[in-house]
Every structure is written in structure tokens, then in C-alpha cells.
């Protein structure tokens, strides 16, 4: 009895989490008449791909996706690399001043983006970097550094010092030890960190909305959000729903494949902090 109740509650929670997204899939497949129909139609009678076609033909949607992918990947790779270096220093080498940097990093993670927004905007304006992916990549790297160094520092501490000693004897220098021994050994932690950073970058909105003013430079998050009211005759909810689905599919994929890692990474970030 208690078991059944529990099962029911669990599935309620699952439905609660999935329903809003599932509703977008359904809406995106309905015809405009079905979308506007009252009472609401829950199962499309004439499923159509029309809204998806409309999406890609009216807006450079493929370009949005590509921009997001590019900016997120570059930020992720550089951020992982930079934070691995810093984490190695934090975990292995007693450097004076490191503590200050650690405190600085942690405080960044507590500041909302809006604090940094305007001065960064000025910088972008002055250096003529608007619409250049680098204008987003550099802040994205920085915003994810605190979190990434935290996880990697904790992980590096678990790697036995003996391996490094042995490598030293074999004539490896510090850089080689980091790149050829520590990094490969930390592959799982690196992957976890990378997935989380990628998701954060993909989802960032404020800077993406304001630093990228050209349609061809927009990321998918900002592009989709500015889609509303894109038609003079009707608010194209079908196309918006299609946009929601397409722009979030890569993330759904990541979550489905890497569910365990994401939970591990988030908890590591949270509990170590």
C-alpha cells in the first residue's frame, strides 16, 4: 500500500517535470487551426512538420544552432583547460596568493550576471567586439571557472602522489605530468565538468541577447526568445513551440546520456563549496 502510493507520487513528479516540454512537442506538431481550437486538442489529428520548416526558412535557425554550438564548445574546452591548470596549482603546489584567487573565484559564482553586464558591454563596445563570438566566449569561460576549478581541485586531490613521483623519475616535467598523466587520469571529472559548462553556456541569455545584435551572430537561446510576436497576423505559437523543441534537443540528449555524471558534478560542486 505504502509502496503503491510512493510509486504514484514518483510518477506524478516525473509527469510534472516532463509535461511542459511534452506540451511544446505536441503544439509544434499541430496545425494552426488545431492550436487555436477551443477546447484544447491534446492529440494532433493531422500532425505536421510545417512549423519546423517555417522556422528554418524564416530565421537563420541553423546559424543560431551553429553559433551556440561553437561558442559553447570553445568556452567549454578553454574553461576546462584553464581551470585544470589552476586546479593543479591549487591542489599540488603551495603558491602564495593562490588563496586570494580561490576566494575571488568563489565570490564570482555568487554574483548575478547583471553586475558584470554593463562594464563588459562597454568593453565590448570599445574593442569593437560586438557580434564576435569571443565577446561571449571570454565571459563564459570566466563565469564557469569557479565551478570548474572547484570540482577539478577536489578530484586532483584524490589522485595518488606516487604516480607523479614515478613520472618525475622518468624525466617528465611538471607540464608533462599535468597534460599526460593527471589529465588523462581525470577524464571522468573533466567530462563531468565539461558537460555542465556546456549546458551553462548554451543557456546563458543576458549577454547573448545584448552582445550579439546581428541575426547571423545570435545564439539559439537569444534567437528563440526574440522570436515571439514575429508575425503581424498571429502570434505564431506553433513556430515558437518548434523553436523551443529544436533549441533544447541537444540539451535533452546530454541529460539522457550523462544523467549520472551531471548529478555527480552538481553535487560535487555544491558539497565541496
Amino acid at each position, binding site marked *: 500500500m505504502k509502496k503503491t502510493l510512493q510509486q504514484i507520487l514518483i510518477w506524478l513528479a516525473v509527469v510534472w517535470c516532463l509535461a511542459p516540454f511534452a506540451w511544446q512537442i505536441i503544439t509544434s506538431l499541430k496545425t494552426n487551426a488545431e492550436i487555436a481550437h477551443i477546447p484544447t486538442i491534446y492529440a494532433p489529428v493531422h500532425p505536421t512538420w510545417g512549423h519546423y520548416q517555417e522556422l528554418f526558412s524564416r530565421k537563420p535557425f541553423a546559424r543560431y544552432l551553429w553559433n551556440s554550438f561553437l561558442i559553447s564548445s570553445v568556452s567549454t574546452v578553454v574553461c576546462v583547460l584553464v581551470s585544470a591548470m589552476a586546479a593543479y596549482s591549487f591542489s599540488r603546489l603551495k603558491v602564495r596568493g593562490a588563496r586570494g584567487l580561490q576566494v575571488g573565484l568563489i565570490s564570482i559564482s555568487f554574483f548575478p550576471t547583471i553586475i558584470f553586464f554593463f562594464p563588459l558591454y562597454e568593453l565590448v563596445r570599445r574593442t569593437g567586439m560586438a557580434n564576435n*563570438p569571443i565577446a561571449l566566449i571570454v565571459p563564459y569561460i570566466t563565469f564557469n571557472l569557479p565551478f570548474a576549478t572547484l570540482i577539478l581541485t577536489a578530484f586532483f586531490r584524490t589522485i595518488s602522489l606516487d604516480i607523479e613521483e614515478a613520472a618525475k623519475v622518468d624525466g617528465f616535467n611538471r607540464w608533462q605530468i599535468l597534460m599526460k598523466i593527471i589529465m588523462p587520469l581525470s577524464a571522468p571529472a573533466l567530462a563531468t565538468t565539461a558537460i555542465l559548462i556546456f549546458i551553462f553556456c548554451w543557456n546563458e541569455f543576458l549577454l547573448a541577447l545584448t552582445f550579439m545584435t*546581428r541575426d547571423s551572430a545570435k545564439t539559439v537561446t537569444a534567437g528563440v526568445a526574440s522570436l515571439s510576436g514575429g508575425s503581424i497576423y*498571429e502570434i505564431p505559437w506553433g513556430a515558437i513551440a518548434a523553436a523551443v523543441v529544436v533549441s533544447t534537443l541537444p540539451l535533452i540528449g546530454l541529460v539522457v546520456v550523462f544523467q549520472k555524471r551531471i548529478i555527480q558534478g552538481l553535487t560535487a560542486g555544491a558539497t565541496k563549496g
Partner: protein
Amino acid sequence: MRFRTWDSRFWMGLLLLFAASLVGCEKRAESTEGVVVLNVLMEPDTTGIWRKLFAEFHERNPGIQIHHVEGPTATDAREDLYTTSFLSGESAYDLVYADVVWIPKFAAAGWLEDLTDRWSPSEWDRFISGSIEGSKYRGRIYRVPTQIDGAVLFYRKDLLAKAGERPPATFDDLAQISQKLQHPPQLWGFVWQGKQYEGLACDFLEVLIGYGGFWINPDTDQVGLDQPAGVAALTFLTDCVQKWKISPPGVTTYAEEQSRQLFQSGRAIFLRNWPYVWPLSQREESPIKGKVGLAPMPKSDDGRPASTLGGYGFAIAKSSHHQDAAWKFCEFISALPQIRRINQATAIQPALKSFYENSPDPVQQAIYRVLQTTVPRPPVPQYAQASDILQRYVSAALTGRLTPKQAMRGAASETRLLLRRTRTSKGRDSHAFPMAQLR
């Protein structure tokens, strides 16, 4: 060995990604094979007329091409897009398809090219004077007006005729007829734009002038919102929703399109909207075809009928590298043949006087009469802030969070603070807007 390959593959991948990101940031399409490309952000081209005109312009001027960037329909959303673009210093746009109210702000920020000397005064005089006034900042002209807009009261002639009523001349008439004839939710009395956005400021301004009030006097910086006329105006709009219930509760979320859809589906007696509604309502499939009349906005005994001046025109971005090409386009698009075609396709009302002087169409004459009643919004650089203050308070009253009196008091005192604090540091040019608010 295993480590080495991992290492080199990693660096290769990183290098490739960087290369890709540099490819991704190619400059804006300025010229393809010697053709100058002019970028302009506009609302979506649903009729296809702009595409045709751009193509025709390109045919006549093979060296110039217009690239239409589709933006959102909401005016202030497009204003924000232009603003962020210009502010970023890397403007994506050569031409600005600019609303009347953007001109003071954009010109004050130094983003627009001064066009005054490009034409002689007699050439500028070909446009309806209100549209030129709306293109000026401190006496200089920054925009070639192509369109002039003014609010029209659309009404269902069939329903009014059946009940033996005439189009309302006063606000009281409007409310009475609505209450008498409506049976919500199938048929509402009066629909308008109550969403918290620029359209609400327009709707309110008309009622305000109709009650004999004023918003901001640009010559003296006086704010008139908390005078009795202001409170009366807001009380009327609030009563439409809350007391008489002649406007649907959703009207507080309606922009132009939502209100038009309700009217066009035959579910409203009166609609306050812009002239573009007329041809749409007369389409073959429209349930209200042949049943619609046009009238100026109502007034009270103390005021006069007022119609908020709106309308777009083309301005040239100071940052554009192709100003002469952009001017060529301005000349092309503001000429009568093009203007006529835009009007045929979209019902956008031309700013050219000659269009009306030669038009045999009685509906055009009726609209021309409404356009005589147009009032501009206060032409101050901080208009956006003033408008946002007003929208916030009017919307708060409409949704019942403040009484009309509280709302107008709050709006007036914040507006005064806004004008006082920004006007102290510089001298004002009082000759800039001679006719402005109190015509």
C-alpha cells in the same frame, strides 16, 4: 605513445574550434561583388510589398541592395534592438525604419545623420506637417517620413444602425452605446490596447487630450497628468474594464493585433486602432466586411478629439559607410508611386500630401480628416522613460492596483523628477518644438 596521440589530437581539435570561431565572425555582408548592401530592421514583411520594392530599387540601382532583417512586431522591442545595436558601436544597420518617438532619443544620442540640407524646404513641404514635426530634434530633420498614423475609432455600422445610434461623439456616448448593445463574452463593447507597452501611452494620450488635459509641455517642462483632466481620462479607461465592463478583462494584455482579432471576428462593437485595420476588415473572408465605419476618437465637453501621431520613416545611421546610397533609397521610397503601392498593399497611410489631394476614395478622405486631429507625443529625449512611467501607472490603475487619482499623482511626480534632474545640466533649445504639445 598513447599519451602523445591524445595530446596532439587535443591541440588539433582546439585549434580547429578556434579557427571555426573566427570563420563564424565574418563581417556583415557589406558588399558582394561590388554591390553595396544596406541593412534595415523592420517588422516581418507579411504582404511581400517590401520585398518587391527592394527588388525594384535594386533593379534601378544595380549597385545597391536592401537587406531586410525581420524584427518583432512590438515597436519598443524593435527600438531596443536598434538601441543595443547602435550602442554596441558595431551597428548592424544602415537604415533605420524609425517610429516618431525614437527620433529625439536617437538624435540626442548622436546615432542619426542630419538630413535637413539634403532637400530644400519646399521639398520637405511635400509631407504632412505633423510627420515632419515628428522627424525633428532641436530644429533639425533626421527622418524622411513615409507613413503617418493616427488612431481611428472603428465601429460596427450594422449594429449601430439597427439600434438607431450614431457614432459616439463623446466618451459618455461610447460607454452608453456599448452597455446597451453588448452581450459579453460573445459581443464586447469597446476594445483597445491596454497592455503595458507604448500603445497604452498612445491610447491614454488620446483620452487625455479628449478630456482637455496635457502630458508634458516641452517648452515649459510642465507635467499635466495629475490635473483633473488626467484623472478623468484614466477613470474613463479604468471604468471601461472594471465598472461598465464594456472591455474584456484581457484588454489589459492586448496590443493592436489582439484587439483587432477580437473586433474582426465580430466580437466587439468599437475598436480603437490604426488605419491598417480598414483593409483587413474588408477582406472577402472577414465576417465584418461592409459592416465597419470610421470616426475620429470621441471627446468630452472640455476637450477635443485627438488621435496620437504615429508613423514610420527612414533615417540614416551615422555609422553607416554608405550614406549616399541610403539617401538614394530614401528618395526612392518616399516618391508617390512607391508610396501608393505601399498603401495598396498594407493600408499604411502615406505622409505625402499629394496622395490625399488626388484620392477619390471617400475612406481615404475620412482617414485624412482623422489625421488632421493628430497630436504628437512629448518630443523629449527621455520620452522612453516618461512613457514607461505613464504606462506603468496607467496599467496599475487598469488592473486595479491603484486608483486613477493615485496613479496620476504617482506618474506626475515621477515624471517631474525625471525632467528636473536631466534638464539642469544643459540649456534647452526652446525653438525645437514650436507646435509640439499644445496645438
